[in-house]
């Protein structure tokens, strides 16, 4: 390695346009050597994962279906929107969100996506508890929840596809 480095330096030094060789040039050369003998790339963000992107899309659709079904097939009259009627749907989405969070947590350089997932799960659980406490939910609140989660899933997709979007 040392011989190779020395050979490299001599090779470079012989081609320098400067009449003298400063210490700063030596460090640049060492850096350059390390650069060409290493992977030569930096990584600040996790690689795009198509499976995670697909799961985000699937979970977003589940949430949309859940609230649209609630909105279109039930009314607040006659206890039509009692919490018990929707328990299964809430669990289904929560399981997906926990799975998404865990998949994101194991990926290095992925703290932005992890935080978005944590917030989404936290708000999902909060609105579930509100529905449980009130044992009903108005059309307006359903609309607001749909919009909130749609925006959170949009943020999740942007974070996941960041590299792809930039490329």
């Amino acid at each position: 390695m040392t011989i190779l480095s020395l050979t490299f330096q001599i090779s470079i030094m012989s081609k320098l346009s400067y009449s003298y060789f400063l210490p700063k040039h030596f460090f640049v050369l060492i850096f350059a050597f390390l650069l060409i003998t290493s992977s030569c790339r930096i990584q600040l963000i996790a690689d795009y994962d198509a499976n995670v992107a697909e799961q985000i899309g699937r979970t977003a659709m589940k949430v949309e279906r859940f609230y649209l079904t609630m909105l279109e097939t039930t009314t607040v009259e006659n206890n039509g929107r009692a919490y018990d009627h929707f328990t299964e749907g809430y669990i289904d989405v929560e399981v997906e969100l926990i799975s998404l969070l865990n998949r994101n947590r194991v990926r290095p350089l992925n703290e932005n996506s992890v935080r978005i997932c944590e917030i989404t799960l936290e708000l999902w659980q909060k609105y579930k508890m509100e529905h449980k406490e009130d044992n009903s939910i108005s059309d307006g609140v359903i609309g607001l929840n749909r919009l909130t989660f749609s925006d959170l899933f949009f943020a999740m997709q942007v974070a996941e596809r960041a590299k792809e979007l930039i490329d």
Partner: protein
Amino acid sequence: MSEFNIDTTLREMADAIGDTISKDKEKIKEIIVKILNRRRERMKMLVELRITGDLTQQRFESRLEDEKKVLEAEFNAIAALNKAMVQKAVNAALDVLTKTVRALL
């Protein structure tokens, strides 16, 4: 025979960073505008629901607190975009340096 000129190489690296960032900042701006438009719709709906009584004052205040969290999530998405942009720009600069050094060997 090619010569190694540190100043030229550094200038080329800076150009590579500048070119990459100027191309990508428009894409990022577009996404930020989308995010802000969505936020505006949500805030409008939140106020309407308070007026119609769908949300009690307590729930309204609680939802305003939630808005901070949604904003945090949106900033995390923007931060991921910025990281991707910086990664691409730095790698473009490193490519210039690698190419220059390889040409000398």
